[in-house]
């Protein structure tokens, strides 16, 4: 029983990290209808920003942790907005295939430049937040895991509030529904899209730091696999749907953890893709998504 509960907790923590990345994917897809392949590498950049921030911050202090998180979020927001402005905006309105290829190119560029600059060997992430273990009835919870879950939940709540209670959030939803109509009622699409990218990237950056706190070994290719899994989570929950992304991430995190502890642990990566294919075949709108008919 203890083992089961422990695995449950592990799955929750993993799911929380996937959720943070998945939210960025789902928001950008909702607004622009394309998969931002470079998102997983923004996640990686966030971890590296946290790494460098951590060199100058006192270890094991909560304030240090908050500063590193804020720095990563800000840095990634800027990066996301920059990428959109320079690379994606000129291709808006063209065939989506071109943007997709560009996104892949951007993703590879970040990864391989990272390898060139930082080297491919993993670096140890500094322990910015005090690492403590709490033991409850044989269950072991690490401080880092708890922080990941709490911060992820807080950020998701903040995102929901931003999207449903603020003006820019309403604008985002309008653009997601119908960009041309949104323009007609006076919404500045460029600003909204930049904001969406910035927000999504900030969340990815936060995810990067939290991930690195939990698994303190960072390298330029660290975002590839979590990014793909997070995308699967977003599709599972319904792309464009924020609570859906969180739900999808949770389910994926749990499933993966239980498979990991079983006989088929080495098929773990394949399972995520199998889920993707299954969902796209049998319920393409995702668990919480709605079917949208494509109008011509």
């Amino acid at each position, binding site marked *: 029983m203890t083992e089961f509960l422990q695995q449950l907790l592990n799955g929750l923590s993993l799911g929380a990290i996937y959720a943070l990345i998945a939210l960025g994917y789902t928001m950008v897809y909702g607004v622009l209808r394309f998969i931002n392949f470079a998102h997983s590498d923004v996640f990686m950049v966030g971890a590296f920003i946290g790494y460098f921030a951590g060199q100058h911050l006192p270890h094991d202090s909560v304030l240090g942790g908050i500063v590193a998180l804020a720095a990563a979020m800000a840095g990634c927001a800027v990066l996301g907005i920059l990428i959109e402005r320079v690379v994606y905006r000129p291709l808006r309105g063209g065939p989506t295939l071109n943007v997709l290829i560009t996104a892949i190119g951007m993703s590879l560029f970040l990864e391989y430049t990272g*390898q060139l600059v930082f080297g*491919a060997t993993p670096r140890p992430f500094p322990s910015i937040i005090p690492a403590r273990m709490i033991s409850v009835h044989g269950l072991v919870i690490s401080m880092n895991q708890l922080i990941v879950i709490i911060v992820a939940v807080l950020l998701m709540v903040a995102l929901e509030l931003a999207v449903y209670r603020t003006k820019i959030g309403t604008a985002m939803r309008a653009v997601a529904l119908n960009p041309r109509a949104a323009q007609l009622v006076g919404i500045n699409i460029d600003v909204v899209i930049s904001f969406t990218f910035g927000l999504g990237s900030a969340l990815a950056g936060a995810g990067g730091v939290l991930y690195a706190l939990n698994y303190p070994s960072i390298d330029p290719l660290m975002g590839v696999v979590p990014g793909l899994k997070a995308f699967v989570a977003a599709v599972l929950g319904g792309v464009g749907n924020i609570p859906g992304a969180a739900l999808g991430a949770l389910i994926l995190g749990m499933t993966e953890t239980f498979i990991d502890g079983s006989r088929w642990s080495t098929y773990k990566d394949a399972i995520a893709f199998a889920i993707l294919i299954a969902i796209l075949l049998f319920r393409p709108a995702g668990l919480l998504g709605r079917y949208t008919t494509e109008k011509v």
Partner: protein
Amino acid sequence: MAAATQFSMFRTLRHTLAAVMTAAAVTAAGRAQEAVKIGEYASLTGKEAAFGQSSHKGTLLAIEELNAKGGVLGRQIELVTDDNQSKQGESATIVKKLISREKVVAILGEVASMRSLEAAPICQAYRVPMISPSSTYPKVTEIGNYIFRVCFTDRFQGHVLAKVGKDTLRIRRVALLTSVSSAYSVGLAAYFKEQFAADGGQVVIEQKYTEGSKDFDAQLTAIKAAGVEGIFVPGYYTEAALICRQARELGITVPLFGGDGWEAPELVDIGGAAVEGCYYTTHYSPQVDSPVVKAFVAKFQARYKGETPDAMAALGYDSAGVMVDAIRRAGSTDGPAIRAALEATQSYEGVTGRTAMDRQRNASKAAFVIMVKDGHFTFVQSISPQSIAP
């Protein structure tokens, strides 16, 4: 009139002398330019750059030292190195290029068994002797009689680690956490299991992971529930460090141990306090109290800005040394001659111990058991092949 004739005679003499001297100089220069070329293929960039760079530094140091002492067969040695970026498929092309374009007489490489297996058939087909510095997978030297290695094999290492488990850690019930992504890990696990069971121990639970994974909580939780006295992790330091951390975080207090893939400074950087008291085996230790090792460490530190050589560097150094020694004994740069000389290597004293080639062209060497103490790799003991012979 006499003065003019004398003058022209003198001029002719001068010209002849100049011509003879020039010819002599050119021949001498020509001979000096004919360097003995040795090729090296290594992973200088990419995922395994740490190992490749280390090995290359050792090899380069050896070649520079040998050149300072006059080279071999009266000629200087030129080391031609090519980078395979840790990728599949590159080593084959590089080795072909080294053999056919650069006309190397011998090949050194590689650290990773998978890439050695890729290049070995080519060296064998072109009859160019190849020495792998640190590929431990047994099959590498089985490719052909031109393929050698200067390190021990995983068969030996697995047996040594079983002994470490039984005698040093004194455990009977062990968990196995293997990487399925590398032949090295799978092979080492199998040999360990074989010997451990033969010695009366029991592998209670086996878990697997893939390289690149960061999360081992699931596997470790299952291991914790099985109640073992130790965990054997025959993988690379990149995952081993995280595994130790997460094990400690989950409240697992039993020791973890592994093989030569653990050796890298990042093991302590990433693992931190979690790797204290953990053991691993490797090919050499800079702390061994021998003049040869101490001299090597000093030279390496002088050449490479204070960096202490690790096992990969030491083996790279010895692989070059053994190869050049064989060329010297062969008396020529002819492939078959060097090969025969390599096969006859019985007592080359290197920094990783005495290298003697056995019938399978593997070096019969001692394994060094290392423990992590106060964040440093501390030498515990060396276990020779004779002490665990059946």
